[in-house]
């Protein structure tokens, strides 16, 4: 016979409000505990490691400004992913669109040279970067809306093409993006008119506020506008959209293009901000892929993405600095990010289900 105790998952009719904040919080704590056990097992002090990470990532003035600086691009790729995800469009090629944003932004900066004033140059660079990101998703968006081709496959594969494109522009001799006759494989810096200055001695650029504002604007667009209404109808029930005469193809196309543009903006923000040049190192950083995780953690809520983006940036920059300040391996930060994601997704079960144990054969007791 079966075991006397069974674990029963009972679907909740309604998720209590407190669980929506409690579950992510507990998920983060549980991930830290799991990470701590791992640290203990490998012979490091979890307390020391975490307090270092906390200070390097969040509480020291250097730490928090670095974190906010890094979060700028992560929030961009996060809202890019969420904007598509909310309509069940899985643009996982934000990474490639980010590269294109960098290429587009760098091209604008270099091509226009020092002739224009900053207040024209900066928006132009950001706009062209966004446009390049949108162009990169144009084909996936078009075939998705017309033929229903899986955007997961097309956007992902185009990321590899985008990475090759970055390499091509940096490594091919005589490229527009590099200094002539230089053997050093690195893009040349955009002119000063296309560069923003960081706040004081930090790596925090004004683009952070632009991006945070943009996240809030998107939140408003989805909740309050006709366009957002259409997105919600199509996301929940394409047949209701058809019934109401909402053109799902056109909305699909627009949503994907905007998603691509947002990742592109992230790339362009790196041009006007910390990088200032087309840097082939971007392909090793995975900022675009991180956006997927950030969007998932915030459950596609645009204002929550600001928080999850900053959290992730902090873990990342705090983790990166561990290696410098202590001898803890750099990968502990990466491991914690993974643990947080796993626990957060696992925590979903507690939000959706009530879990309790029952005796299997109560009728026969």
């Amino acid at each position: 016979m079966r075991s006397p105790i069974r674990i029963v998952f009972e679907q909740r009719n309604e998720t209590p409000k407190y669980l929506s904040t409690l579950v992510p919080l507990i998920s983060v704590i549980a991930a830290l505990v799991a990470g701590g056990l791992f640290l203990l097992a490998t012979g490091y002090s979890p307390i020391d490691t975490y307090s270092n990470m906390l200070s390097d990532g969040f509480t020291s003035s250097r730490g928090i400004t670095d974190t906010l600086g890094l979060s700028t691009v992560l929030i961009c790729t996060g809202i890019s992913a969420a904007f598509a995800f909310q309509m069940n469009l899985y643009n996982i090629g934000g990474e490639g669109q980010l590269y294109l944003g960098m290429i587009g932004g760098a091209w604008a900066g270099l091509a226009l040279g020092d002739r224009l004033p900053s207040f024209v140059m900066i928006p132009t660079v950001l706009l062209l970067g966004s446009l390049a990101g949108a162009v990169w998703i144009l084909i996936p968006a078009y075939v998705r809306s017309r033929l229903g081709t899986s955007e997961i496959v097309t956007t992902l594969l185009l990321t590899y093409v985008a990475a090759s494109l970055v390499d091509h522009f940096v490594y091919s001799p005589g490229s527009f993006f590099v200094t002539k006759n230089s053997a050093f494989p690195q893009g040349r810096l955009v002119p000063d008119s296309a560069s923003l200055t960081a706040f004081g001695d930090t790596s925090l650029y004004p683009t952070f506020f632009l991006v945070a504002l943009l996240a809030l604007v998107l939140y408003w667009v989805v909740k309050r506008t006709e366009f957002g209404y259409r997105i919600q109808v199509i996301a929940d029930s394409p047949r209701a959209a058809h019934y109401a005469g909402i053109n799902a193809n056109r909305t699909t196309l627009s949503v994907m293009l905007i998603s691509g543009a947002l990742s592109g903006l992230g790339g362009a923000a790196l041009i006007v901000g910390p990088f200032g040049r087309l840097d082939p190192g971007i392909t090793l950083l995975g900022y675009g892929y991180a956006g997927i995780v950030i969007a998932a953690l915030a459950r596609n809520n645009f204002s929550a993405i600001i928080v999850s983006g900053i959290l992730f940036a902090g873990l990342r920059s705090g983790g990166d600095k561990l290696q410098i300040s202590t001898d803890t391996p750099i990968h502990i930060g990466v491991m914690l990010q993974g643990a947080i994601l796993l626990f957060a997704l696992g925590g979903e079960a507690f939000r959706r289900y009530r879990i309790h144990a029952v005796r299997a054969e109560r009728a026969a007791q």
Partner: protein
Amino acid sequence: MTNTSHEVAKGPHHESGAAPSALSAHSIVKRFPGVLANDSVDFDVLPGEVHTLLGENGAGKSTLAAMLCGLYQPDSGYITRNGERIALSSPRAGLQHGIAMVHQHFRLVERFTVAENVILGSRDLSFRLNRSELENRVSAVAESYGLPIEPGATVGDLSVGQRQRVEIVKALYQGAEILLLDEPTAVLVPAEVEKLFENVHAMTQAGKSIVFISHKLGEVVEISDRVTVLRNGRVTGHVSGRGTTDTKELARLMVGRDIELTTQRASHATGHEVLQIRDLSLNVGGVSVLSDISFNVHAGEMVGIAGVAGNGQRELADTIAGLLSPTSGSVAITGSMSTDRGPIHARELGLAYVPEDRLGMGLVPSMSILDNLLLTRDRHIVVDRASVQPEAVRLIDQFEIKANGPEHIARKLSGGNAQKVLLARELSGGRSATKLLVVCSPTRGLDVGAIETVRALLDDARSAGQAILLISEDLDEVMSLSDRILVLYRGSIVHETPGESAQLATVGAAMAGLSTEGNA
């Protein structure tokens, strides 16, 4: 709730002197989150008897049946079989005790033959199947109960009535002594219902017990030896005796108050033609779904389209609503062509459409009532919810929608209330005043109280001069409401009759394709 009658035959053990009941439930309690689905329910069925569980949707009859066959386990109370207490931990355990359920939605593999479906799940099969021997065994079981089936036929080619018979044969083949039939007539045309009832008699003659689950009063009276009425999870009455039962009394036990289901068909002075359909044909993927359909609907008139599901009803409604483009022919609403011009244009001409699929097509499940009211209306670039709020409150009040307010999420409404939201939106006009209302299966799955309200709303709309096209698989509904009845069979209108003089037998025969007695 309080003094509901147990006057007819109280208690399940009215024949306590006779043989023990084949199956009985004792003080069964079953809770679901927020709902007491069964509240100390007693029920029993004797050998060779048809005992009906009657109740509205949500009364708890399916829950009880699920516990009787082992699908659910009761929270308290117990079940006995021939007087002995048994534990049913799974449907397989139920089957071992000779209890089988025939579900409303068949669980057959369409690509398999009848015999293959019948033996599916049997554990005493050899590795290599001897097809002809199996078919003979299946035939033998079927014929001993007068259930003619073709064991070699592919299930996908069978009619709904025949598939149901396969399900019953499957239960019998597995050794069922007690069959639970869950709303078995819901999917059948009248001729098939008759056939089913003959089969039920043959089975009870052979000593099988039948638990018949239904909310249709007429057939309950016809088939049952005894009736147990459930309401809100409680037994509100045990009624015995075939044919002697008063349907009004049953309805009162079921709903808890007197109800009036037969609407008065006033002789309406009908107005001009609001909907004109000319030579409409539609092919989908090379298959003809609608062919050469022409009819009109006048202002103040209700035209009913009768037919078995899948004969082109949905496509006809979608074409009128501008969701499908016809292959040939035309649709005109209030004199203007609407063919090929999309749903928004049709609505601007005065169309309102209540599709069969309420949640998922007519309503967006995750959205609030307020947002759902906006679905078929003109929305500004920035959606102005505040200006619709008072109207939403008014409609909730006027249509007696049970909701916490305009912010109530559509998915969390009961079926009846969801339908009322849909009707409220469609009847109140959106892009223009409603002149033509197309409604599909407006009362399907609703409880008796809600059915009454929905029908009254349709009646009011007709009196207000709206033209109504009622498309429904519920023949009783079409017959009792329509001024004119058209029968749709394989995409063509095969029969037309005025509502008042319509004959059940004639309309039923037309629905079945006129000359199909042989395989009905």
